[in-house]
């Protein structure tokens, strides 16, 4: 490995900026899932529905298919609109589903989500071939910002968008991906603070009380049904924002990457690995997820490509019988993220049930923000 550059090694392990944009909006989705499931204890197995509603609302608005909303309306308006629709649907679904508890609640939410999944896959209003989803073409990229002030509008996009040279005379250049990163990040950060605020309000305390002992919360006099419904609606709202950001950035949606059960699974994975019931944990959980996926991706910066380039020929062809090291890499490393994520996930469920952030908090005896300064102080003396 003598000739390996540190830079090349870091290139394999550090996520790209464009990956980080995905981490942000999917992380927001995972946080919205954790908001209701981690704090009230009701496992919402159909959460992808709300993400999908936000995503499809923006896609349909962008192609002029939402009555009363012009295709060139500000993106922030579409985002709020999608989130509100997701909120309303979440309240409607919750009103019915919260008659049930436990596994039955998880199943009825899954049932609702699958109904919407099947529906969107076959609804020909979406496009001529609804199975393939819909692409927003023929307009410039969506812009995040404050509507009405052109200077505070930043176009985002996976392939195009705004870029700035020499920002405010500091000599820093921001490419299109960086602009998207900060613009999406601003919305995600704001949403995170909003959810955090709710969790630390009296309302949020009741959510935790429901998780810990619903009977007692009821006995103390709280109408737990309304609190659960409220939490579910709010969660749907932020899941809708995450979905809207997804479409805003990618400018195309498909049933498989919005309404699918495996989209809910991504949120579940992120929430468990990051720490169930720790709002920020979901974001770290998804960062971890994308980190593993990035390393094991088939793309040029993946570990497989790196190993094939870095290992000498003699090592690559070594091995017993048909299975050489090269073949091993091709079969078991290249693009096999799901396998290892599944194993990691099982390990977390078995051994680290509180997740990364939860375990860290247990170790520190409080939240990181509270305890870290004390710890650092101790080492300074």
């Amino acid at each position, binding site marked *: 490995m003598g000739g390996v550059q540190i830079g090349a090694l870091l290139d394999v392990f550090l996520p790209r900026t464009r990956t980080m944009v995905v981490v942000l909006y999917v992380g927001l989705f995972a946080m919205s899932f954790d908001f209701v499931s981690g704090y009230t*204890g009701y*496992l919402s197995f159909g959460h992808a529905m709300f993400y999908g509603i936000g995503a499809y609302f923006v896609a349909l608005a962008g192609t002029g298919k939402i009555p009363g909303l012009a295709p060139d309306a500000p993106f922030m308006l579409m985002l709020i609109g999608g989130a509100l629709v997701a909120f309303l649907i979440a309240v409607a679904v919750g009103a019915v589903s919260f008659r*049930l*508890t436990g596994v*039955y609640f998880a*199943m*009825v939410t899954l049932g*609702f989500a699958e109904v919407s999944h099947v529906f969107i896959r076959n609804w020909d209003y979406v496009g001529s071939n609804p199975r393939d989803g819909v692409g927003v073409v023929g307009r410039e990229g969506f812009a995040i910002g404050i509507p009405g002030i052109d200077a505070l509008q930043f176009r985002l996009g996976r392939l195009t968008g705004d870029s700035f040279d020499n920002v405010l005379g500091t000599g820093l250049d921001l490419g299109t991906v960086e602009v998207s990163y900060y613009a999406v990040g601003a919305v995600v950060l704001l949403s995170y603070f909003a959810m955090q605020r709710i969790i630390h309000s009296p309302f949020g305390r009741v959510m935790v009380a429901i998780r810990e002992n619903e009977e007692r919360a009821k006995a103390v006099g709280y109408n737990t049904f309304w609190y659960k419904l409220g939490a579910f609606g709010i969660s749907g709202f932020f899941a809708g924002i995450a979905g809207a950001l997804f479409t805003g950035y990618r400018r195309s949606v498909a049933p498989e990457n919005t309404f699918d*059960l495996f989209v809910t699974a991504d949120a579940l994975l992120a929430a468990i690995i990051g720490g169930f019931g720790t709002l920020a944990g979901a974001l770290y959980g998804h960062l971890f997820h994308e980190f593993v996926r990035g390393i094991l991706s088939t793309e040029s910066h993946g570990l497989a490509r790196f190993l094939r380039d870095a290992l000498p020929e003699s090592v690559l062809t070594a091995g017993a019988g048909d299975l050489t090291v090269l073949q091993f890499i091709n*079969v078991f490393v290249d693009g096999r993220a799901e396998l290892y994520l599944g194993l990691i996930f099982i390990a977390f469920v078995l051994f680290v049930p509180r997740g990364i952030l939860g375990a860290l908090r247990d170790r520190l005896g409080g939240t990181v923000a509270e305890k870290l300064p004390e710890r650092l102080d101790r080492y300074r003396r």
Partner: protein
Amino acid sequence: MTGLSLLADGLPLFAPIGITLDALSKAALYIVIASGLSLIFGLMGVLNFAHGSLTMLGAYLGGAVMVGLVSAGTGQIARLLLFFVAVAAVFAILTGFGAAIEVTLIRPIYDREPLFQILLTFGLVLVLDEAARIVVELGGLRPQTEWQAAIGTAPDFLANRYDILGASARGLLFFEMLVGLLVVTAIFLFLTRTRYGLYIRAGSEDPEMTQALGIDVRRAFTVVFGVGAGLAGVAGVLLMWDPRFGASVPLGVETLLIAFIVVIIGGLGSFKGTVVAGLLVGLVDALMTWLFINYIDFPGLPELVLFLVLVVVLIARPKGLFGIAEVGGH
């Protein structure tokens, strides 16, 4: 292939008889798919998310056994008998696998909330599906497309059509009904005539009392989880002769959703409920498929309606049709 509703190739068009035949064959498939999940859920309250993936493994394994055993010269009756050899082999393999999973992975977390058991089996889905994908790709197959080589091993008299009271149906439909009946009978005997059957029935009525009576619930859990996994595999083998299915990695999710619908509608801890729900779901699916072919132009109709049935039943009867207790809390 999409979702639950796979149009029967050549659905009999003479309405009442044709729909009934289609409904019964679908019900048989659905009951077999759901029965293993129902046993595990009934005794242990564990909603095994990996059930569909085990079915998918069963389909590939069963198909591989049949393709390996059957050659051009194999007689028609011999093929039918070899099918049951494949069933037995797959049942044995997956029962052992299921028992091993229970002992190593699920046993350590019984004392935690039921949520964690769902999560753990969910992790298994990711691992099993990806492992299957690796093996399938090594075998030169494409995991997303159905592998239908095993259909060729079905005897000709199952592929032929027969006329019944004016409707025409493939022999396969009757074969599926027959196997469904066999499986239901076998499980019924297992539940009523064996010691573990007694444990299951007692355990789903009142787990604490069962334990207090000195029954080794741990071993019962291992046996039941194994049998449940084995039944998932049997369901997979049954699907491999059906041109509406065929082995593929996404088959796991597809059958899992069917199994959920049937078990939840039937209610926890009730095998009778599972059978009745299977019949109901089969009938609804057949009716909706017929409506779609003849009247309503919406391809997702049967699948959509099945989930609506699930939602409506849960709202009207939160414990399912024959459910004994609401599980889990949360």
